[in-house]
């Protein structure tokens, strides 16, 4: 955690704490990198590197412009275990409870290219190639999914962080208690509401909150019900309802103070 040294809450103390944290995470900052604070974020950025964190949540972002396949720093070539191991070290350094690590997945990107021959329009497909890889870790607090929290990590060839989104906000205990109550209800065969043109595919207790890149932090315990479509051969995106203990939709976590937008009606031209 980026805690200032022994009560130094000055701008300089905050900048020093952020730089120290970057050093602990092996984030190599350029000389010209500057510390700044804006809205609920503080961070250090240069032309090539960004390291920022939220002041209202356990949220950390890292991005290097010069990493990835074909870039100066390249992409990590180690195995999945090495990628996870590095991720676990980072999470520990940032104070993420080990017990909350949920499903781990390495997502392997694939690339392909094709040429379309001029006159004939013939398509000449290239081979499928390996792209970058990133490790993802979901959050699970004793069987409660925290759907909006996640850890995403991609490394450069030399093992330094190329891209990272660690969004793991502290959940206030009353909200965790309510989520446990919802968990109890689901275990006791709570019945999801019927939904027109939808059939229930899954029912899970958990927590939703605002995304990593946002200016507010709304958190709601909810039961998530996913509905598949019952309409024949059409309309596929699955409805996901987030419901409270009364079966009513919880508010949608915001990303900021949303501006008022007038309701518009479109007329035929």
């Amino acid at each position, binding site marked *: 955690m980026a805690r200032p040294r022994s009560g130094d809450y000055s701008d300089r103390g905050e900048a020093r704490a952020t730089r120290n944290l970057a050093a602990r995470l092996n984030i190599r900052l350029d000389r010209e990198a500057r510390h*700044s604070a*804006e*809205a609920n*974020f*503080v961070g250090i950025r240069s032309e090539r590197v960004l390291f*920022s964190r939220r002041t209202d949540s356990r949220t950390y*972002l*890292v991005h290097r412009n010069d990493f*990835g*396949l*074909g870039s100066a720093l390249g992409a990590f070539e180690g195995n999945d275990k090495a990628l996870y191991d590095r991720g676990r070290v980072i999470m520990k350094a940032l104070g993420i409870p080990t017990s909350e690590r949920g499903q781990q997945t390495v*997502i392997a*990107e*694939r*690339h*392909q*290219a*094709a040429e*379309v021959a*001029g006159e004939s329009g013939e*398509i000449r497909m290239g081979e499928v190639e390996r*792209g*970058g890889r990133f490790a*993802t870790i979901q959050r699970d607090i004793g069987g409660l999914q925290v*759907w*909006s929290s*996640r850890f995403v990590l991609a490394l450069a060839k030399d093992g330094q962080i190329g*891209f990272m989104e660690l969004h793991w906000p502290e959940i206030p205990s009353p909200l965790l208690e309510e989520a446990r109550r919802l968990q109890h209800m689901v275990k006791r065969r709570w019945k999801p509401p019927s*939904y*027109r*043109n*939808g059939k229930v595919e899954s029912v899970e207790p958990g927590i939703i909150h605002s*995304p*990593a*890149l946002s200016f507010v932090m709304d958190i709601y315990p909810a039961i998530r019900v*996913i509905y*598949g*479509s*019952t*309409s024949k051969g*059409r*309309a*596929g*995106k*699955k*409805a*996901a309802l987030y419901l409270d203990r009364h079966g009513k*939709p919880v508010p*949608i*976590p*915001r*990303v900021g103070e*949303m*501006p008022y*937008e007038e309701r*518009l009606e*479109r*007329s*035929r*031209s």
Partner: protein
Amino acid sequence: MPLRYSTGAVRDYVGPGCGGPDLPLTIPEAAFFRYFYSLAGFQLFTRWENGNVWGSDFRDGTDLDPSGGSDVPEIYFYTGHGNCQSPPTATSPDFVITCGNFGTPNTVNIGRSSRWGNGAGNLRFAFIDASCPMDLVSLGNNWFPTFQGLHVAVGHSGTASADTLDSANRGALFAAYTAGSFSLFPHLSVGDAWMAAGTIDIQSGCCAVAIAAGNDRNDAIDRRQNERVSDNRSDPTPNWFAWRWSCG
């Protein structure tokens, strides 16, 4: 001159009798997209919802309708229903499915009907958050022809059991990563942002897909990997296509 963007979000399918379940998170998802794009200084062109999003907005010949055609702005974000086959084949169509007051039919066969950037069209970036609008197996038939000046498009590939979930955070994070609205957010290319955000709230086996056209192989690959919405690159001649995908 700032680039123009539009959002089209369809929540209501049941009431008007369009089939498919309602999608309550599409409206906030599009609002979040606008929040970040307006913050970054992009100019809002249209922000239609529900019955005001028309199938004709996505069909060549009517997509230049000044009241909401998808080929008028440079950037279009659609969220609503699409359709998945189980499994798709190389000849299976990809769809956008609206529930419009006008401009029917609501079902748009992308490969047959959508052409972006041709004639007076302007669209550079097509962001389609729907069910399987970009199946990998049929990209050549469904997506190559749509690129008539279009730079990069994103969507999903999957099946009825490996599909996207209605989500507010997926579009919100994608917008925040691509818009360049805030100095302490990573500012990612369209392709990188979709690989990071497009895998949110999808079922196992569903894939986030980003495709770019280019004058030649290197150009297509460079756009797939690196083009940002704010780069102001010229329109590519679609001699080559390059795409990337990652699966949940």
